């Protein structure tokens, strides 16, 4: 193989036309840079929007739904086994939200290899009393540490410290919207009435902002112990077990399995939040289409320039062929030309794209809705760089393919005779 010679010839031909080469390469650079920037930015936004909900949503949630028993006693009675039983006016009985045996279940889930972590939770519906006003809301009793580790709770506590919910007795962290309604400041005491009618004073130790105002207006957090006390329940009372998995895609399977295993309701994140996925997918799709369109345009640019180059280099091609270079050699020379434009243009494009992304990453982006976000979000996934460089090579190869084939078919006799 004469590969070195072919590269040498290709390089000399390229360098003799620096201007043209640069135009072609800049086309590739531009499109790859845009591709990278666009995808990094779009995916960054996607991730941010997803994280608004998905980061804080357990991958699998175990709970007891209040619903009538599917197996009514009459169906279990042996004497009515063979008959068809009509039962009217079925009601849910003993509305027990509590997860029975929560301790052993948590132990079992924790030892599962697929599980990243487990956090218990109590949901309590309450009224916040402000003067004569009763405002409905909910208090989530959480294990502050587990909640912070798994669901980034501390990130959303914008005022005060998340850990104070645990460290300060009878304390509460209010949603910012709720606090505004209650005119509560950190250090104030708010009155809470439970569904059972009991009234409790709780000390405000912080505010949180989830980024979703509807949530912030009704929700608040307290430690599990505080909520257990509030509801007058024992310290084994838990209504939800939140499971975070190592691989979120396993969630539906794991949920099904746990529902079987623990005889409990289990909901997976995909079912709970299907609409978010659709949104992200469409945004990603748009970014890819725009990026690939840019690349195709750059590809046509290369195609044109190579075609032009071949017309200019007809004489050179004829000489090469007359002196013993085969059509295949000529073909390779022009493919190497195309690919090196793609390679160097693409490499520069990756770099420029990275720089653009970093610049966007520095632009301040402050919004009340997103307390954790200070600048525009960027996703620096290596996958985009990989796809970008692959695509730049593929498009330039395709753009070079036909011109190179044309060059390889040049008949030297025709050129030499034509002089």
């Amino acid at each position, binding site marked *: 193989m*004469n590969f070195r*010679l072919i590269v*040498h*010839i290709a390089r*000399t*031909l390229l*360098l*003799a036309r620096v201007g043209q080469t640069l135009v072609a390469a800049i086309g590739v650079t531009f499109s790859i840079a845009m591709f990278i920037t666009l995808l990094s930015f779009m995916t960054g936004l996607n991730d941010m929007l997803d994280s608004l909900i998905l980061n804080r949503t357990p991958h699998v949630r175990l709970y007891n739904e209040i619903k009538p028993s599917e197996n009514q006693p009459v169906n279990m009675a042996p004497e009515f086994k063979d008959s068809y039983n009509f039962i009217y006016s079925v009601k849910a009985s003993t509305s027990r939200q509590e997860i029975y045996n929560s301790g052993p279940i948590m132990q079992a889930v924790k030892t599962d290899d697929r599980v990243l972590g487990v956090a218990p939770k109590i949901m309590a519906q309450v009224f916040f009393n402000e003067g004569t006003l009763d405002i409905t809301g909910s208090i989530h009793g959480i294990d502050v540490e587990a909640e912070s580790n798994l669901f980034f709770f501390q990130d959303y506590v914008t005022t005060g410290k998340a850990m104070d919910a645990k460290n300060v007795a009878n304390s509460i962290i209010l949603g910012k919207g709720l606090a505004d309604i209650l005119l509560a400041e950190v250090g104030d005491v708010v009155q809470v009435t439970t569904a059972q009618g009991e009234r409790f004073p709780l000390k405000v130790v912080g505010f949180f902002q989830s980024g979703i105002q509807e949530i912030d207006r009704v929700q608040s957090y307290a430690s599990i112990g505080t909520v257990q006390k509030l509801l007058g329940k024992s310290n084994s009372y838990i209504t939800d077990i939140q499971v975070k998995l190592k691989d979120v895609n396993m969630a539906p399977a794991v949920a099904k399995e746990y529902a079987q295993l623990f005889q409990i309701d289990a909901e997976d994140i995909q079912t709970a939040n299907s609409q978010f996925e659709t949104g992200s997918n469409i945004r990603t799709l748009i970014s890819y289409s725009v990026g690939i369109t840019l690349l195709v345009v750059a590809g046509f640019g290369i195609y044109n320039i190579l075609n032009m180059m071949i017309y200019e280099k007809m*004489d*050179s091609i*004829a*000489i*090469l*062929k*007359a*002196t*013993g*270079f*085969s*059509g*295949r*050699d000529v073909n390779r020379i022009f493919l190497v030309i195309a690919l090196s434009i793609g390679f160097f243009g693409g490499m520069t494009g990756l770099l420029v794209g990275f720089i653009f992304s970093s610049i966007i990453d520095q632009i301040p982006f402050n919004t009340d809705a997103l307390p954790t976000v200070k600048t525009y979000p960027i996703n620096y996934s290596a996958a985009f760089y990989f796809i970008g460089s692959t695509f730049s090579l593929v498009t330039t190869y395709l753009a070079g393919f036909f011109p190179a084939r044309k060059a390889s078919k040049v008949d*030297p*006799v025709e050129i*030499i*005779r034509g*002089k």
Partner: protein
Amino acid sequence: MSEIILEARHINKCFHDPVTVQVLRDITFTVDKGEFVSVIGKSGCGKSTLLYILSTMDTDYEGELLIDKELMTNKREIELARIRNEKIGFVFQFHYLLNEFTVLQNVMLPGLKLKKLPQEEVEHRAMERLKMLGIDHLASKIAYKISGGEKQRVAIARALINDPHIVMGDEPTGNLDIRNSEMVFDIFKELAEVHNQTLLIVTHDQSFAERTQRIIEMEDGRIISG
């Protein structure tokens, strides 16, 4: 009995555009090793057409062509390219050089393509040939920055780089002034006499032809003498 380098057997060639015209008729001849042959004939009698066939660049003909006793007819393009590279040196009327390359690189390219010798050796041989033709001082110049006569000598050096069995030329002096033509002729003569190089040169120049060892005269697509 001397060795036959090139043999044409009953070569016929037609152009079909726009009407079928037969340009070469039953061309049969041989060239021996070391011969200095010139081909003459009126304009349009088919000299260039014949030369393109003999140089294996044109494969669209009837009859048989043998170079170094090897049948060229119906060989694949890639094999013909290799034979051109190794066994045939070609000098055109218009001094075809690769303008992006230096004089030395132009001479070296067919040698590098052949890949029989390492690069340094090819370079050494290229310099030798440039020296022989008195243009070694131009070695590092870009090819389009030298004069016409110099270009033609570079083309000859390039034709010689792989020690070809035969050097073919299509009016190599056709575009040169008398002084340069003389110089090119002297080079060919020296190649033939001193280096025993086989040469087949198409020319319009009667005095050029008369000083070669053998003249093949063509008329209307036929060889009429030689």
